[in-house]
């Protein structure tokens, strides 16, 4: 008899989702209450996972795995979701999309990501992926009276369903050519002589690259980010990417272990293309949400560059990168939720012009976050990029390193342009004054972490390396 207790985070999550759903239905206007309960659920989940952090085991005839690697990613997802709920609370209420279903659907997508990360079996992986994606479609079209939000939801749904179809096709081919859905067995059987498995791997890579919006499967990103309500965009930009990178690493390490030569070429191309497109296409953007969409494409490119080296230092550097990416994006979205003028949330770059006169603290935090996004020392973003390039150069992939550095320089242009708009352009009307403890704490925490990371930069790297070696 397998010990079901080891499956505890997922079981706890399912039961609490059902309970919050009932609470939401039976109390009227229960958005506030449900959100508070969801905070509690997220915090207790973090504690549950920390409780058995280092235990490594497999359940359900090896189709579910849990070890320190998956636990690290689960905690990262929980932290991201927690802070996003905090910073979006006010925005949601003011835009009258405060259905109690919003936090519940958010939790369901977290459940999907948990299953996806822990899956050691193609069927379970696919179910987790679908659970997560279905929740995201609903979230994208949550503001249903807004035409743009509807468009975003529909666009994301159709394109993502297509990508899921391709991924499923790859899964069925992989099952056909290795006669197993278990990752470990596939890892043994899918070698370079197994041509069908290589063919299947390409399809699975396409599906996964779509989910983390890597070039050339990025087309949906700017439209969906712009159309969806800002609260949902912030979730899209942070949490699913973490899950996507975790799944990428798991796939490359376990089932496609022996096919490294083949997937490395593909990943190098995807990562190069994402870095360059993320840098070049963001230059012309005037909408902040679109700009963040392109910048996130670029950042995913850097994270994938680390994975494409297929070395321990490469994997750990991309995990460090995605962790710092979460902190930076939480910070920048906290700023977006502070930018409200005459009762409306601003989304354009020119709304930022000259805000340093009226809002010195907001501008200095934006300065820190943008410098960090651009990868300028001594902020955390620099160390993230530094580790990536170190591992890439160690693996002697000089072209990738040079192109990556060049695209960093190009992308620095548009980050610095925002800083120029904030500090040196004509003074605009001040933003509305409002106090929100959650948003300011998040912003403060994010800028503090980014600004003080240089004190002991190798801490995270060492932590992550021990995770992978376990």
């Amino acid at each position, binding site marked *: 008899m397998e010990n079901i207790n080891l499956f505890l985070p997922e079981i706890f999550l399912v039961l609490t989702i059902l309970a919050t759903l009932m609470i939401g239905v039976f109390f009227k206007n229960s958005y506030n209450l449900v959100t508070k309960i969801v905070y509690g659920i997220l915090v207790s989940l973090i504690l549950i996972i920390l409780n058995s952090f280092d235990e490594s085991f497999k359940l359900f005839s090896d189709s579910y795995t849990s070890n320190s690697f998956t636990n690290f990613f689960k905690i990262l997802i929980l932290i991201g979701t927690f802070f996003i709920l905090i910073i979006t609370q006010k925005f949601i209420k003011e835009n009258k999309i405060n259905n109690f*279903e919003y936090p519940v*659907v958010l939790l369901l997508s977290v459940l999907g990501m948990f299953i996806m990360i822990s899956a050691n079996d193609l069927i379970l992986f696919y*179910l987790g992926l679908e659970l997560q994606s279905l929740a995201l479609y609903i979230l994208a079209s949550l503001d249903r009276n807004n035409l743009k939000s509807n468009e975003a939801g529909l666009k994301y749904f159709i394109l993502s369903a297509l990508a899921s179809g391709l991924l499923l096709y790859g899964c069925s081919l992989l099952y056909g050519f290795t006669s197993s859905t278990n990752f470990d067995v596939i890892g043994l059987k899918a070698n370079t002589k197994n041509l069908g498995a290589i063919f299947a791997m390409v399809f699975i890579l396409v599906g996964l690259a779509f989910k983390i919006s890597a070039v050339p499967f990025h087309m949906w990103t700017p439209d969906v980010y712009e159309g969806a309500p800002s609260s949902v965009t912030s979730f899209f930009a942070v949490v699913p990417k973490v899950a996507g990178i975790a799944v990428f690493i798991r796939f490359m390490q376990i089932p496609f272990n022996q096919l490294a030569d083949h997937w490395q070429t593909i990943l190098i191309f995807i990562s190069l293309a994402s870095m360059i497109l993320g840098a070049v296409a963001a230059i012309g953007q005037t909408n902040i949400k679109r700009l963040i969409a392109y910048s996130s494409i670029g950042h995913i490119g850097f994270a994938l560059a680390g994975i494409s080296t297929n070395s321990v230092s490469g994997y750990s550097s991309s995990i460090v990168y995605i962790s710092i990416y979460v902190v930076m994006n939480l910070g920048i979205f906290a700023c977006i939720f502070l930018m409200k003028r005459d009762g409306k949330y601003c989304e354009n770059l020119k709304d930022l012009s000259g805000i340093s006169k009226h809002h010195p603290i907001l501008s200095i935090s934006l300065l820190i976050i943008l410098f960090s996004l651009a990868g300028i020392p001594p902020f955390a973003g620099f160390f993230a990029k530094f580790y990536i390039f170190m591992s890439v150069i160690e693996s002697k992939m000089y072209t990738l390193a040079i192109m990556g550095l060049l695209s960093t320089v190009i992308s620095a242009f548009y980050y610095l342009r925002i800083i120029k708009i904030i500090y040196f352009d004509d003074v605009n009307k001040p933003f509305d004054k409002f106090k929100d403890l959650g948003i300011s704490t998040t912003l403060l925490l994010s800028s503090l972490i980014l600004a003080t990371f240089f004190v002991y930069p190798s801490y995270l790297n060492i932590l992550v390396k021990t995770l992978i070696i376990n």
Partner: protein
Amino acid sequence: MLAHTFFFYFFSIISVGSALMVITSRNTVHAVFFLILDFISIGCLFIMIGAEFLGMIMLIVYVGAVAVLFLFVVMMLNVAEQKQSWFRGREKSAHIPVGLIVSIIILAEVLVVVGGWKYKSNFIKTEMLAVDGNLTNTHMLGNVLYTQYIHLFQVAGVILLLAMIGAIVLTYTKRQGVKTQSYFTQLSREKKTSIKLVEVDSNKGVKIDG
């Protein structure tokens, strides 16, 4: 054995006959009803060859969901009377050549499949399917679905729940200003609060809602 043959011919004649009626009947609603009859008799045939799970699923999914959905669509679109039916209509339909080509291709494919069946032992290893004669299909499915794959079954359930939540969130609107019956206030009304006795002067009347 005789009963078995009798039932087989009974259900197959019904299914073939109703399939013909589906494509020939003028009234689309009737066609959908014949489609349901066809599904039911095919479900019975499945049960006769021992695939009782497939038969029941046929009933639940095709009859219970798909055919009833067709019926709804037909009734909503109001296309009950079909004008062009190529058996009986006087006008010639332009779709017949295309339909014939497609059906000839399908017939050829069926022939290829039937021909290939002769060599099936070469590429399908039936011994992989470890069928236990004592257990029914439903038992066998249940044995793996609720033990080895219980977590997948549960996750699939959660996905369905999420789909339901999503449908409600995205379509349910609370309409403003709708007058509904409130049983509680209705029943809790008393004579004192609802009846007012007024003395009416002649030629003056009373103000209603006053």
